[in-house]
């Protein structure tokens, strides 16, 4: 369980980005964050990843482990986080290599990930030779290869076209069904937020806080045909209504 209470962050002396944000994420739960530009979504992720310190009085608690929480982070600009001098296999192996695993252990962990994300045939290719969608799959495989306690997806599909992004949504759900990993995903796309999340937390405009936590009444067995289902559309409408309330103008 990840429990965030009264999380605030002010940059400088008078630029509050987050204010009194409360959020609970259960183990293995997939939560998406949806909110307007500049509402502090990325700051929230950066605090969870340990890049940014929250203000005093804030509390971020991880119930199972209080320290050394392994975080897998998939960035928006995936091409700038992969290592272009390494091939696909070595990019995925990178976090294991820095953990000091032996070559055999690395092969045992990387092989199944290549298979899981259908990258076996590209394992020896350089990452710059791949399409944007394939690069993003490498980034996700790399974030998952060390079995993180928390997977953070920061607008992972914003640079991909819709058809490619939908293909990866399905691959993510395949992964989550096989291996439930606690996930926090930020999205600007309401369809994506609803399709990927078991809950969608809608944030207010800056200073950001969660104004509505909406449970998505869809099973884990998701397919793209659900995008036109009544349950999906009603959840989508609820998210959009909450968004409109929290975003004046």
């Amino acid at each position: 369980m990840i429990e965030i209470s009264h999380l605030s962050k002010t940059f400088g002396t008078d630029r509050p980005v987050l204010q009194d944000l409360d959020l609970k994420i259960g183990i293995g739960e997939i939560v998406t964050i949806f909110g307007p530009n500049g509402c502090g979504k990325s700051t929230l992720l950066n605090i969870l990843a340990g890049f940014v310190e929250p203000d005093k009085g804030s509390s971020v608690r991880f119930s199972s482990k209080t320290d050394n929480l392994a975080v897998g982070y998939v960035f928006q600009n995936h091409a700038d986080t992969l290592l272009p001098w390494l091939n696909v296999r070595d990019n995925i192996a990178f976090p294991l290599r820095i953990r000091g695993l032996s070559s055999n252990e690395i092969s045992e962990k990387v092989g199944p990930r290549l298979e899981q994300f259908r990258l076996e045939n590209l394992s020896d290719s350089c990452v710059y030779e791949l399409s944007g969608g394939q690069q993003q799959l490498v980034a996700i495989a790399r974030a998952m290869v060390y079995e993180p306690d928390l997977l953070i997806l920061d607008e992972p599909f914003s640079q991909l076209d819709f058809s490619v992004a939908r293909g990866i949504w399905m691959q993510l759900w395949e992964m989550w069904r096989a291996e439930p990993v606690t996930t926090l995903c930020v999205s600007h796309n309401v369809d994506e937020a609803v399709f990927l999340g078991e809950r969608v937390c809608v944030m207010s405009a800056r200073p950001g806080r969660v104004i509505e936590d909406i449970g998505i009444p869809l099973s884990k067995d998701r397919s793209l045909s659900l995008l036109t289902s009544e349950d999906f559309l009603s959840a989508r409408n609820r998210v959009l209504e909450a968004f409109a309330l929290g975003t004046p103008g």
Partner: protein
Amino acid sequence: MRWLTPVLVPALTILLWSIVTVSGFVNPIFLPTPWSVAGALFEGFSSGGLFSDLAATIWRSLIGFTFAVLIGIPVGLLMGRIERVAEMTQSSFDFFRSIPATALFPVFLLIFGLGDESKIAIVVYGCSLLMAVNTFYGARQVKRSRVLAAKVMGATPVHTFFYLVIPESMPGIFSGLRISLSMSFVLIIVAEMFIGTNVGLGYRIVNSQMVYRVPDMYASIFLAGLAGYLGNKSLLLIERRLLHWVGR
């Protein structure tokens, strides 16, 4: 026909050179014909003299270049990645960079004497600054997003340095290597011209000019240019092979 493009300008230069020398437009004392220069080149190699001069020049410049690389790369990496080191050294660095290495000939002569040491020291001085500056700019190019991604995956500063900073600095390091290799050659030839020696391309150029062996002088100049060109080309080939991701 594309293969013709790179040889077009040299071929035209040789043609123009032949015309102006054969027609008597230029006195052969100042500019001999291309074939007399080629003859001097051939004769120089068959007698072995040109080869030993070339070997001495290459050997000296490579020793100086190697020391410059060993000093310049670590200094550039430290300056590029540790802000405090950059702040402390930047102005001194800019000052020393502004002094032409050739202006320090007398200083190195005083310290190291007339032997090879003084010539090599000039190369080490001039080229290590070039290496450090290029490495510094390379190390500054490291993408912050990549460093953050590595950090969240559990990379320590040591991992970040070896797995990210060094590969990302390589384009800067390679441009430093190419510039320094050319510069090491230039500095050694100039040093051989003015600092006591009786072997080396610089010595041969000056000596040929003094005794009016003009074709031999041009042959030595041509050889110096060719050696520098081939060195640069070799480094470019290695760079393209090793840094396959650059510009992709």
